[in-house]
């Protein structure tokens, strides 16, 4: 029997799924590319540099939020509080910078720290108090929504006194180098955040546990890992990223608008799911999320540029989202 042992194992399993990888990733852009091509044909205005920049800039806030919540979704959780947390972080930045007159870096730090702290609280509710993520973050969403209004007295806080605040999102480092393509900093921030999170997911222990928790939390626990602590860390990280989104949006509007935020969570989660991350956890990519966010903003922008009637815009958006994901399904089935 012993001669049999060495051989069968070689053919027994469908080896690592690496072979078609790069090709497949290219194809993931397909939906996006079809959209872009379609809109370019339909309207000459669509592919103009400034419109492309508009689209990228419109992606930045939702993109950063989506990247943040990708982490949570890969663990098999969900975070409904990201929209109002974003606002709350912006409000904190406003309080620190405008009301207390602190220097810019302190305000930036405050916003990110607030996000991380709130994330940690949500994470604790989920990991330690065993409250389902949906409920924990739904509660958090309401609490934060109220708090933003209370702290500000329902009035926006403006950043007129903080020099350089609007540059966070609107300035353009790229534009100084390539004047023809003044890519706003907000977009660079999105790329940086996406890159960092992709790196964390792919290379670090934290990333490994993010996937492992979503794949089989009980197995991770049985392997002697303190799953609760890691989950809290993941929520805190995600919260910090939401804090960055808060900086971006308030820099863009030059103000912290306390009433804004609700609804942004759904848009971000949609981007994540369109990007191929499964809501049941264990699998997902940052690249997919960014593409998902791009698909959404290309769609919205394109339909507006074509001056489609607003009620038809919604209908068409709905249909295209379904179609895009369906096409992706077909592609995967073909590839698998």
């Amino acid at each position, binding site marked *: *029997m*012993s*001669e*049999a*042992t*060495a*051989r*069968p*194992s*070689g*053919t*027994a*399993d*469908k*080896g*690592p*799924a*690496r072979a078609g990888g790069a090709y497949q990733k290219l194809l993931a852009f397909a939906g996006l590319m079809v959209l872009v091509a379609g809109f370019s044909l339909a309207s000459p205005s669509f592919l103009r540099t400034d419109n492309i920049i508009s689209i990228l800039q419109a992606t930045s806030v939702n993109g950063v939020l989506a990247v943040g919540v990708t982490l949570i979704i890969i663990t098999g959780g969900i975070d409904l509080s990201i929209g109002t947390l974003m606002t709350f972080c912006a409000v904190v930045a406003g309080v620190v910078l405008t009301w207390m007159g602190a220097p810019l870096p302190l305000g930036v730090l405050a916003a990110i720290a607030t996000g991380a702290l709130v994330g940690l609280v949500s994470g604790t509710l989920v990991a330690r108090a065993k409250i389902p993520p949906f409920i924990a973050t739904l509660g958090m969403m309401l609490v934060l929504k109220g708090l933003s209004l209370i702290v500000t007295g329902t009035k926006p806080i403006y950043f007129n006194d903080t020099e350089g605040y609007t540059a966070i999102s609107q300035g353009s480092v790229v534009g100084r180098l390539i004047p023809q393509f003044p890519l706003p900093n907000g977009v660079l921030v999105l790329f940086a955040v996406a890159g960092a999170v992709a790196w964390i997911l792919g*290379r*670090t*222990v*934290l990333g*490994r546990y993010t*996937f*492992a928790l*979503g*794949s*089989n939390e*009980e*197995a*991770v*626990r*049985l*392997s*002697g*890992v*303190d799953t609760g602590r890691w989950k809290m860390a993941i929520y805190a990280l995600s919260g910090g990223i939401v804090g960055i989104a808060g900086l971006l949006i308030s820099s863009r509007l030059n103000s912290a608008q306390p009433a804004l935020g609700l609804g942004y969570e759904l848009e971000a989660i949609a981007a994540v799911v369109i990007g191929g991350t499964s809501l049941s956890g*264990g*699998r997902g990519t940052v690249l997919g999320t960014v593409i998902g966010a791009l698909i959404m903003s290309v769609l919205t922008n394109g339909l507006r540029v074509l001056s489609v009637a607003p009620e038809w815009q919604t209908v068409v958006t709905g249909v295209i989202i379904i179609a895009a994901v369906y096409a992706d399904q077909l592609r995967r089935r073909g590839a698998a």
Partner: protein
Amino acid sequence: MNGLVRMEGIDKRFPGVHALKSVDFDLRAGEVHALMGENGAGKSTLMKCLSGVYQPDAGRILIDGQAVALPTPKAAQDLGIGIIHQELALMRDLTVAQNIWIGREPRLSFGRIDEARQNAEAAAILSRMNLGIDPRTPVSRLTIAHQQMVEIAKALSYRSRVLIMDEPTAALNDAEIAELFAIIARLRAEGVGIIYISHKMDEIRRISDRVTVMRDGAHVGTVAAAETPIARIIAMMVGRELTDEKAAIPDLSAAETALEVRDLSRGPELRGISFSLRRGEILGFAGLMGAGRTELARAIFGAEPADAGRILVHGREVSIRSPADAVREGIGYLSEDRKHYGLALGMDLRANIAMASLPRHADAIGRIDEQALGRIARDYIERLRIRTPGDWQEVRLLSGGNQQKVVIAKWLLRDCDILIFDEPTRGIDVGAKAEIYRLLGDLAAGGKAIIVISSELPEVLRLSHRIAVMCEGRLTGILPGGASQEAIMELATQREGAAA
């Protein structure tokens, strides 16, 4: 030989179940201590107490004579206790190497994982086990048997002083088992204490030093393996003598053909398979791991339809694109992977047993006849000796072997003309195994056509009227029921090009 582990008066209750009744157990360094007992006797529960998964209600655990607390799996690991769980506890989306090193990843700066080292070390462990799996393969792409081997590799990587193996060979075939036993021998020589749980009686003789038998959550006795006849151990387990006589092979040449498969193919996994199955016949399928038997069964059943080929049921060509089609044609399939493909773990026994037959037990407006289903479920609980507090128990709370019996009951109740059983006795105790063999014999005698896929050659030989052998997706031959093991192995290793 000194006392490595002592468990004294361990007691554990679950709602409705007194799982452990003041059990004593001890393990010495450098021994293999077999833990035996019927399904639901409490073996896994006892081991979960030792590995920090469950907290006993009473009793104490001593390591090196020192009383210890084991509040978490981590605490047990830190004390050098490793366990291979009966139910695979792998992260399916992660790779083999990632699974092996979970929680102990080799790190670089900034919390980075040293993937290269992780893969290399995983590869080293796998090659020491003579396994050619690429450590970068996602676990979800592995067969059950290979997943089991990954669990073993993971447990070995801990370098524990105490290694608990809860039915490690349930999904393995002879080649892997031999490999595992070589590893066990090595570990024993190094002074590791091994607790070995299995329902395969021959294994006990081959590797264990002592045997502890449990029954109904209580310790029955501990004996030296070499001096105790198997029959005596079985008697201790089941409390009675077992008789298992193989019935004479009936003459089926006149029987009508129930299932005919012609040139069934799908990709590289199935290549032009043709055979026929008569009513009243049990056709065994033998082959090495990955030979394609499961794939064949899934193709016939429509779970993953074939690309080419024809299937005839009772002489009539049928188109099977989904399991629903197959069941409509009277074909049933019991999967080798009960957890993922066999059971709704969160639901009760009654619902699981009825899963394939619900519409038959409902009236015109779809109202389920619960009373009848309850009666049926309780009948199967009795006939298959399923140990459970009742038919309302959630299946996930049953012991592994009892879960397997539930899946069997599901297909018995469906009453298909053609039954495909893939590893039907995985994790089932000797007593119940004999019962299932008898049941299959009765079904065949009653005119059913049955395919049994099994990695245990003795089982195939015990049950089959004819034996089909597969290798690398091809059917390499069909042998008569009385064939020798050597003849089967020859066909099982008949690679393409090697022999015609």
